[in-house]
C-alpha cells in the first residue's frame, strides 16, 4: 500500500502540492486527474522518490525516504511522459536496460505484451512517438515483471501513459495496466482522459491547484460539481445507455 500524509512539495517558494493525503492499494488501479499544473506529475515524482518533500510517504509500511534506489528499483517502475534517449540504442537494448533479473526472455515477452514484437532491432530514435511510448512501457514492465513477489505487490507508476497513442492502443495499454492490477500489483496512473479513467480505475484522485479535492470511486468523483470546480469550466457528466458508465463532456463554447 502507498499512503501519503500531509504531503507537501515546493519548488522555489511555490507550493506545488499542499497537505495531500493520498492512498493506493495493491490490486487496484488509481488514477490521478486534474487540470494542467494541479500537481499530478509532482505527486508521481514524489511517490517515486525523485524529489524532496515534506510530510510522509509510506511505501508498503516503510518510510519511502529510508529505501535505497536499488531497493525501490525492484519494487516499482516509472513511465515518464517522454524519454529523450542520448545514443542510438536499438529497441531491444533499451528494454534490456531494465532487465534487473537478467532473464533473457523477458525483454522479448514485454515487447510482445505491448504489441511491438519484431521491433527489437529497430533504432529507438527512428520510432514514432506512440511506438517510443510503448517501448518505454515494455521497459518498465521488464523492470517489475511480476505483479506480486513473496506476497508483496510491485508497482507501476505511469505518467500519462496514453497521451501519444491512438484509441486502439489507448485501450490496449489501459487493459495492460488493468491486468497488472488484477494480478495483484498496484497501478498509479496520471490521466488526462477522464473517460478512460472512468472505464479502468478503481479510484480517482482529483487535484486542483496542488490540493487533493477528492479521492473516491469513479462514480463518486465524476460529478458535474466536482469536475466544474476542478477544471473551472462547466462540465457535464453523462452515462452510457448500455452499461451505465459515466462519460464526461465539457459544455461547448458559444460560437455566435
Amino acid at each position, binding site marked *: 500500500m502507498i499512503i501519503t500524509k500531509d504531503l507537501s512539495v515546493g519548488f522555489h517558494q511555490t507550493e506545488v502540492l499542499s497537505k495531500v493525503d493520498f492512498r493506493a492499494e495493491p490490486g487496484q488501479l488509481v488514477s490521478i486527474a486534474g487540470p494542467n499544473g494541479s500537481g499530478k506529475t509532482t505527486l508521481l515524482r514524489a511517490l517515486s522518490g525523485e524529489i524532496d518533500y515534506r510530510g510522509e510517504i509510506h511505501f508498503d509500511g516503510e518510510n519511502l525516504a529510508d529505501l535505497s534506489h536499488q531497493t525501490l528499483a525492484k519494487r516499482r517502475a516509472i513511465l515518464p511522459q517522454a524519454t529523450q534517449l542520448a545514443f*542510438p540504442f536499438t529497441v531491444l537494448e533499451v528494454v534490456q536496460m531494465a532487465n534487473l533479473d537478467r532473464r533473457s526472455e523477458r525483454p522479448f515477452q514485454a515487447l510482445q505484451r505491448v504489441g511491438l514484437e519484431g521491433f527489437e532491432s529497430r533504432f529507438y530514435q527512428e520510432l514514432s512517438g506512440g511506438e517510443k511510448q510503448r517501448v518505454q512501457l515494455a521497459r518498465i514492465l521488464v523492470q517489475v515483471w511480476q505483479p506480486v513477489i513473496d506476497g508483496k505487490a510491485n508497482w507501476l507508476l505511469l505518467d500519462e501513459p496514453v497521451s501519444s497513442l491512438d484509441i486502439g492502443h489507448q485501450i490496449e495499454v489501459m487493459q495492460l495496466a488493468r491486468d497488472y492490477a488484477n494480478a495483484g500489483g498496484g497501478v498509479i496512473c496520471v490521466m488526462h482522459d477522464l473517460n478512460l479513467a472512468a472505464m479502468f480505475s478503481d479510484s480517482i484522485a482529483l487535484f486542483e491547484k496542488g490540493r487533493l479535492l477528492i479521492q473516491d470511486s469513479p462514480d463518486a468523483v465524476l460529478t458535474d460539481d466536482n469536475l466544474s470546480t476542478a477544471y473551472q469550466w462547466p462540465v457535464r457528466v453523462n452515462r452510457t445507455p448500455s452499461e451505465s458508465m459515466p462519460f464526461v463532456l465539457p459544455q461547448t463554447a458559444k460560437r455566435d
Partner: protein
Amino acid sequence: MQATGDRSLQAKFTISLLMLALCLVALFSLTIGSSNTSLASSLWALMQGEAIGIQEQVILFDIRAPRTVMGLLVGASLAVSGAIMQGLFRNPLADPGLIGVSSGAGLGAVTAIVIGGLLPISLLNSIGGFLVPIAAFLGGWGCMLILYKIATRQGRTSVAVMLLAGLALSAFAAALSGLLIYYSNDSQLRNLTFWNLGSIAGASWSSLKVAGPLMLISLLLAPLLASGLNRLALGEAAAMHLGVSVQRLKRAAILLVGLSVGVAVAVSGAIGFVGIIVPHLLRLVIGPNHRYLLPAAALLGAIALMLADILSRTLIAPAELPIGIVMAILGGPFFLYLLLRNRNLLDL
C-alpha cells in the same frame, strides 16, 4: 545477430579483432624506428632464446618498449575517458577537456616551464625532469576539483553548470597561460610549443613507473561505470528509477577521468581527437552499449596512438614529428569523413 537487435556478439567479435590488432601494432612499434639495425630479427632471435647485441638490447628495452607501453596506456586512457565523458554528458561530442583537466594541465605545464626555474635548486634536483608533468597533473586535477565544487549544490552535480563553468574556467586558465607566455623567453617559448604539440618520445621506465599504474588502475575501474552510463542515456531521473545512484556515478566518472586524463596529459602533452573519434567510430560499429564500448575504446585508442607514434618517428626520420600533429592531421579529415558519411545517424 542484428535481427534481434542484440549487438553483443558483433561487439565481442570486434573486441577480439582489436586485441589481435593491438598485439600486431605493439610488435610493429617495437621494431620500427629511425635506428637502422634490424630489430625484427633481433626480436626473433630473442624469442628463439639467442643472445643479441648490446645496442639492440638498449634500443629495444630501454627506448622502444617504454615508449610503446606509454603510447598504449595514453591512447587507451584518452579514448576511454572520452567515452565516459560522452556518456556522462549524454552527448557524443563531449570531450575530457570539458571537466577542465586539459586546460588546467596546460596552465600547470606553462607555469612549470616559465617560472619553474625560480624554485629552490635542491627541490629542482630532487624532482629532476618531472617538474613539467607533475605541474601539469596538479594543474589538471586542481582545475577539475574547482569545477566539480562549482557545479555541485546540495549533493547534486549539474552537468549543464559544469559545461558552462568549464568553458569559463578554461578561458581563464588559457588567459593566465597567455600571460605567462607573454613574459617567457625564446627557449621557454620553444619548450611550450612542443609541449602543446604533444609527444611520448620522452617515455622511460622511470616515468612509466609512476604514470603507468595510475592509468592502468583507471582503465581497470572504468567497466564498473558501464551499466550506470547505459541507463543514464535514458535521462537522470529514469536512471535513478532503475536503481542507479546517479550522484555517485557522476562523482566516480569525474574522478576517474580526472585521474587518467590528468596523468595522460602530464606525460604526453596535448593530444587531441582520440577521445572523440575512437568512441564515435566504435558506436557506429558495435553500438553505444558501454559494456562493450569501454573495452573496445581502450583497445582502439591504444592502437590509434601507437600507430600515430610510429608515423611520428618514421615520417621524417631521423627527426621526429610531434604526435599531436600526426593525430590531428589524420584525425581531423577522418572525423569529417565519418560525420558526412553517417549524417543520418546524427539526426536520429
